[in-house]
Structures are given as C-alpha cells and as structure tokens.
C-alpha cells in the first residue's frame, strides 16, 4: 500500500511540472500582452519597453519560468501585475467560496443523480426509467445561465425580490451558506445527469454479475439486493467522477459566480485571462491543478481501499 501511494505521488510530479509549463506559456502566447493592455490606447513609443522592463517581462521566457518555479518553491505565488494584490491572499479568500459552492453543488448532484440512476437501472427500459432519465437529461440540457438569469431577474420584476448580495461567513454564517443554495441547485442539476448515467450504467453491469444473480436466486427481496449488494459496488466508480467534478466546478462555475456575484476562483481566472495578468493565471491554475491532482490521487486511494481487486 505504501509503495502504491508513493508510486502514485511520483507519477503526479511530472504531471504537475508539465501543467506548470502549460500554465506559464499559454497566457503568454495570447496576442496583446499585459503591457499593451495597461497602456490601452496610447503607445508612447518607449513606454512599452520601459514598462515591460519594470515588470520583468523583457527577459527571456525560460528565465522567467525558472524564476517563477523558484519563487513557488519558496512559497511565493507572486502578485497581480494590475492590482499588486498578493495572489495567495486572493486565493485564500476565494478558494473556500468556490469549495463551498462546489461541495453543495456536488451534494445536489449526488442527491439527484444516484437515486435516479438506481431507479433507471432496476427498471431498465421501463416507464420509470424513461421518466427519470428524461428529467435528468433535461436538467443538463438547459444552459445554466438561462436558469440563473430567470431566478434572479423574474422575482425582481414580479415581486421586488432577488437573491441577496454576497456576504462573508464572518458577517452572517447563515446568510453566507444560504446564498449558495440557488447557485448550487443550478450547478448540481446540470451535473446530476452525468452521475445518473454512471450510476445506471454501473448498476446495470453489476446486476448481471454472478453474485447478484445468486442473491436473486436466494429469493432476497429486490430492495435488499439492489441496495446491499449491487449499489455498494456500483458506486465505487462514481467516486472517481467526483475528482472530475472538482475540475468542472473550479473552472466551470464562472458563469454562475458571475450572475450571482460570488467572488470565486472562476471569476478571478477569467478576469485574469482577459487582462493577461500572468502571475494570477499561473498561480490560480497551479493551485487548481494541484488540487485536482491531489483529489484524483485520494480518490484512487479510496478506490483502492473500497475495491480490493485494485493492484497496489
């Protein structure tokens, strides 16, 4: 087991390095660099060069890359080229926000996806299967920004009510958690279809296996068979999706954050891309990638514990 953990950790290192390289070069390939954007409409000849030098952007790109790696090794994520706010401080503020939103959305997704998946599997090609799956896929198929706009705008026009503005946890814990409910439902509904599909597929497969057939033949009641024998095994792969779920939410919740005014990672990142704020793009991405790699790692380990057939 220890060797397995070690090996998985070692494998993660090159992935992280490759990711850091992509993270570093990708934003610099975009036409229109940060200095041109800062100077907006006025190119006063040498201003561009001077500002580049001041920001340290005139040195060879590989020098900049290794300096950045060195700074990270010392625990510095750098500061925004625009606002000069330390990236780490902003991350400390935003990571919990996105994590809360992501956690609640995942709970919603599981709460909808797993039961529907089970129903759809045990009544495969029955009426219940059709309805359950149609509902889940419909939830996926309406763009989430439409739902978000509808729940913010229409109540405001009809009743003068709209979801309240963002409040910090320290100010009002209940209000803080409450403000994630609507966005989490919208995000969760969209992800539920994937979990439903996976649960259904896995359960269908498990239900055909010998030990389940044996359980049937022993005359056990359907509920017992499904819940006790089949579901437990079917859910193992579902755990792995959660790792991907993190990736989807970390970057994908931006539209929901945008409409609901939630200061999360997605908004931070999109603004940084538009402004070519290299240290922010690099810092945020690196943190997200690290989290995802670590999540996948722990998911694999959980998987290994749950399913003894996995080779260490």
């Amino acid at each position, binding site marked *: 087991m220890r060797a397995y953990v070690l090996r998985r950790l070692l*494998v*993660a290192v*090159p*992935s*992280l390095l*490759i*990711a850091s390289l*992509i993270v570093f070069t*990708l*934003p610099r390939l*975009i*036409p229109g660099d940060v200095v041109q954007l800062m100077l907006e409409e006025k190119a006063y000849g040498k201003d561009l060069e001077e500002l580049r030098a001041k920001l340290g952007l005139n040195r060879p790109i590989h020098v900049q890359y290794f300096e950045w790696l060195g700074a990270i090794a010392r625990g510095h994520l750098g500061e925004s080229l625009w606002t000069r706010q330390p990236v780490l401080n902003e991350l400390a503020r935003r990571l919990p926000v996105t994590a809360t939103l992501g956690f609640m959305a995942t709970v919603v997704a599981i709460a909808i996806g797993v039961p529907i998946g089970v129903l759809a599997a*045990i009544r495969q*090609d029955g009426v219940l299967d059709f309805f359950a*799956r*149609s509902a889940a*896929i*419909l939830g*996926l*198929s*309406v*763009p*989430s*920004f*439409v739902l978000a*706009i509808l729940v913010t705008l*229409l109540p405001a*026009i009809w009743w003068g009510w709209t979801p309240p503005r963002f409040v910090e946890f320290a100010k009002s814990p209940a209000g803080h958690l409450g403000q994630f409910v609507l966005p989490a439902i919208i995000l969760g509904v969209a*992800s539920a*279809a*994937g979990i439903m*599909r*996976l649960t259904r*597929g*896995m359960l269908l*497969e498990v*239900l*055909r296996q010998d030990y389940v*057939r044996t359980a049937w033949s022993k005359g056990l009641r359907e509920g017992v068979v499904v819940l006790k024998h089949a579901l437990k095994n079917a859910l193992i*792969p579902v755990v*792995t*999706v959660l790792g*991907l779920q993190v*990736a*989807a*939410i970390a*970057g*994908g*919740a*931006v*539209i929901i954050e945008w409409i609901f005014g939630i200061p999360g990672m*997605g908004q931070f*990142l*999109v603004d940084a*891309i*538009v402004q070519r704020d290299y240290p922010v793009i690099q810092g945020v*991405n690196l943190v*997200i*990638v690290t989290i995802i*790699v670590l999540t996948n790692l722990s998911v694999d380990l959980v998987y290994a514990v749950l399913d003894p057939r996995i080779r260490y």
Partner: protein
Amino acid sequence: MANSVQTLPVPRALPRPWRVPTLVRLVLTFARRKPLGAIGGALVLALLVMAVFAGQIAPHAYDQSIPGARMKPPSSQFWMGTDNLSRDVWSRVVYGARISVTVGFATVALATLMATAIGVSSAYLGGAYDIVVQRVVDAWMSFPALVVVLSLIAALGPGLPNLILALSILGAASASRVIRGATLSVIANPYVEGARAIGAGHLRIVLLHVLPNVTGTILILATIGLGTVILAESALSFLGFGIPPPYPSWGAMLSGSGRSFMYYAPWMALFPCAAISLAVFGFNMLGDALRDVLDPRLRGRAH
C-alpha cells in the same frame, strides 16, 4: 462547461467485429427496445435535416431584416416571432442548426480523431511512450476546461474554425483516456496475439483488429460529446468567446440580445433555448441507447 460529462464506463471488448445486418430491421428493433433512444435519434435527424436544408426550410435569410417587423410576437406569419433587428427567429433557429451541427460534428470529429490517435497509439505502443503521453494527458485533463478554451480562443482569435479547434483539443484528452482503456482490453485478446504470431504488421493489427473493436466506444463518446459541445458553445457565447456574428448560433442568440430582451420579448430567448435543449437531449438519449445496445456487459436482462 460545468455540464460536461466526461466519464463513461469503459466497455471492454466487443465480442465480434462490427456487422451491419439489415438496416431497417435494426432501426425498428432499436426503436422498439429503446423508445427514448429513438426519440433522441428522431431529434438528431430533425437537426440534421434542418442543417442540411436550411436554405429550403427557412422562409428568410438569417440576417434579413423585415421592414416593420421589429420584435413581433409569434404569429401565423412569424411563428417564432421576430427579434429586435426585425429578423425572423424561426429562420435564425433553422440556420442556427447548421452552425450547431457544423461546430458539433467538426469538433467531435476532430476530437475523436485526436483521441483515437492518442489513445490507440498509447495503448498499443505502451512503454515509455505510453507513460509520457499519459502524463501530458493527465496535466491537460487537470486543467479547468474553461481556462484552456478561453486561452486558446484568445490566442487564436474568435471565429468558427478556432472555436472548433479549441473545443476539440479540450475534448480529446479525456476521450483518449477512454479509448486507451478500450484498446488495452482489445489487445489483450488472444486473437490479437494470434495476429501478431502470424506476423501481421502493426498497422494491419490496428486497422483490422483494434479499431473495429473500439468503434462502439468511439461512437458512444462522440454522440454524447455532440451534446456537450453545443452546450459548451452557449456557455462560451455568454462569456463573449462563442461563435461571432454574423453566424446565428443558438448560443449567441440566447446570450446576446435574446437575453437582453428575455422579459420583454421572451420568444427571442425561448426558441433558441429550446433548440439547444432539444439537441442536447436528443444526442444524450441516442448516446445512452447506443451504449445500452453496443456495450456487451449491458446486454440481456438482469434477471
């Protein structure tokens, strides 16, 4: 993007190479056994027809403004109403199908091509090549999808081909993982060993034995991927990175003025939104049904 569903159970080998029995009988059987899949198929078919015959179906050009018809509600003349630029919404939805189909199919084709090349080669060649390629795929997959797409579009410039390229690069990584898995189980089969033993070349083995056996997997991935691409395009439109005008993409119609006028002229948003939803629904249902049919582990009754 939040909606992207990237994981599928990895079907192992298909028992026999793909055969085409009488097509009609197949379709009928499929429709009887998988009515939802058949509905999905019908929706997809409708989408394709709209896309191919847009010029014949749409009463107006997508950018034609009809004098005196600004923001008219649905009527017998304009059954989906007109928008704030006096354009017929129905015509735009029809032409939008062409855009969605183009983006969807081109993206999925390109992504599948890349994914198949990566997945099959990685599994087949194995060794150091496999390890290196898989680490890159790991890194790529752990990126928030949005970052990849936004950066690529910003770098390449907005536009239909660039959007297709960006979305397909994004989709290829995770799909390649699934295809690699499928390939691994195919090449573990004795008949591949056999082919090797009688001295068949690598290309021959891949073309004759590996590819036909992972086709089912690829087909399922591609079908569901089509829905994902259509949704992704609408999300990107919202952020201003979608398909630029003058193309009447559903995402742009919905997130552009459709959204501004949502309360006052709901038909401007409702119909493109319905089109997106139906297309996504159709592709997903068809994909699910295809998997039920094609994946051997899901064949037969459970009890």
